[in-house]
């Protein structure tokens, strides 16, 4: 965990209100893992007291860059979307617990993402395809919101669904999953809470890992803003420290 001034190399709109940003730095790109996140300062920190958590969509250890994909939601992400190449961002990271990818139980793996839950799955999938048969199912609200379809297709078999049916399968990701005639040994999911609940239920007999979002204060485990009930001794986990990726069996949704 360090605080690093990183430089924006690219900041482009890639779908409806969705931006892809590539930032470079000395340390964070070398140490961050799939599923971890960074905590980004907004402005000069005099108006906005809280950093914004964003997942890592991709990592390039050679060019020492990381890729973030963010949806413009409120003031912070709106500010991010106005920044140009060369601007310095103050970044705290790597934070949290990423995806675990050493399960040798089987070969068939499912990756399910919804909306802004898709980004962290990209670098994960890149790693998974080296060793496993991976099926990716991505859900978006509507056609204009779809991003990274080609990038995922280049890696592996990818299905897209949209809530309104304007692109790909009409319906939820779980509808697509139920039509797949495959026996998965493990799954990974990231997306809005209702999606995670539906996926967890659908895959109840399969071990899986879920990546969560929760409003954060410190992002490092000190303030207890981001707790979530869990089946452990404490009765809770901190999303920023124990998560954002948790075993599906561990959490109470």
């Amino acid at each position: 965990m360090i605080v690093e001034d990183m430089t924006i190399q690219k900041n482009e709109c890639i779908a409806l209100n969705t931006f892809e940003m590539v930032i470079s730095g000395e340390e964070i790109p070398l140490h961050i893992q799939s599923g971890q996140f960074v905590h980004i300062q907004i402005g000069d920190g005099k108006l906005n007291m809280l950093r914004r958590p964003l997942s890592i969509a991709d990592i390039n250890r050679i060019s020492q860059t990381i890729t973030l994909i963010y949806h413009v939601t409120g003031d912070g992400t709106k500010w991010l979307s106005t920044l140009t190449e060369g601007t310095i961002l103050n970044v705290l990271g790597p934070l949290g617990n990423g995806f675990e990818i050493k399960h040798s139980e089987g070969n068939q793996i499912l990756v399910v993402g919804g909306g802004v839950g898709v980004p962290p799955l990209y670098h994960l999938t890149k790693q998974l395809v080296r060793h496993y048969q991976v099926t990716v199912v991505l859900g978006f609200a509507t056609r204009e919101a779809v991003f990274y379809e080609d990038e995922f297709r280049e890696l592996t078999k990818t299905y897209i669904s949209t809530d309104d049916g304007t692109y790909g399968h009409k319906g939820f990701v779980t509808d697509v999953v139920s039509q797949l005639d495959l026996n998965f040994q493990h799954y990974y999911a990231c997306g809005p809470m209702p999606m995670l609940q539906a996926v967890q239920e659908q895959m109840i007999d399969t071990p899986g890992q879920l990546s969560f979002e929760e409003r954060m204060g410190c992002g490092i485990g000190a303030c207890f803003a981001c707790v979530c009930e869990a089946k452990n001794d404490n009765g809770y986990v901190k999303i920023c420290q124990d998560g954002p990726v948790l075993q599906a069996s561990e959490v109470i949704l």
Partner: protein
Amino acid sequence: MSLEVTLGDLHLNNPIMPASGCFGFGREFSAFYDLNQLGAIAIKAATGEARFGNQTPRVAETSSGMLNAIGLQNPGVDGIIEQELPFLRQYDVPVIANIAGSTLEEYVDVARKMSEQAAVKALELNISCPNVKEGGVQFGTDATLAYRVTEAVKSVSSKPVFVKLSPNVTDITDIATAVEKAGADGLSMVNTLTGRRIDLHQQAPIIANGSGGLSGPAIKPIAIHMIHQVRQKTDLPIIGMGGIQSTEDVLEFLLAGADAVAVGTANFQNPFICERLVQDLPETLQAYGFNSVKEVRDARCSHQSTSL
């Protein structure tokens, strides 16, 4: 330059400490810098039993501030003593134990246990948490109750007792003078102001609890004013807090009447903030013509007859 300050019987190497609830029990921040650099550490509130706290979301952002309604989540006084204090014992920095409760008995019980810990050098009686119905805020808004809980805690504590005051009152000097009469060794001020934000999409409060405590630079002028007011009425040591982000802010609090300061919200933005303030304070003091923290205090006292 000497940054030393003396808060009654409590000696600090410098006037900078993290504020309770914004620094956990120090562990996470020890990954960023050596905690020995701090003047003190105010740890997260302890209650009699473990508490899970409020539903999430527990934080929301506001203009130059934030709301929080953590709800005093903590492993209980025994849990803190067993799981957290041993870690802090390796440091040579005074720990200030923040004490919360819903009843006078709970306060007394937690205070007794905490005051027996060698690492704990002072208690901070939190009678001002606005975020749990039974979080003791009634003790902080009623001078008689404030007097009673302070007196009771003093009677069981072998360590100095700082009372943390709520700014959500008509006249904070009433509460300050009541707790002074009850034997308080010092004051911490201020805790958060109660606030609320409504999500326009959900048409519901952002904070699951409804309201939360407002902290950050937004409240700094209110904190400065209340410290000034209380300083006119008492010579008790005051730990000032509310929106501190810079060494200039630290100096403003000292001039207003504080003897030391605590930094809360700013830790979330910059985990190095407390270390940086300690390191930069000498230069700032010098820039304004001071050669020690004590000189600031003397200047303030000589100005006190005027309207500072």
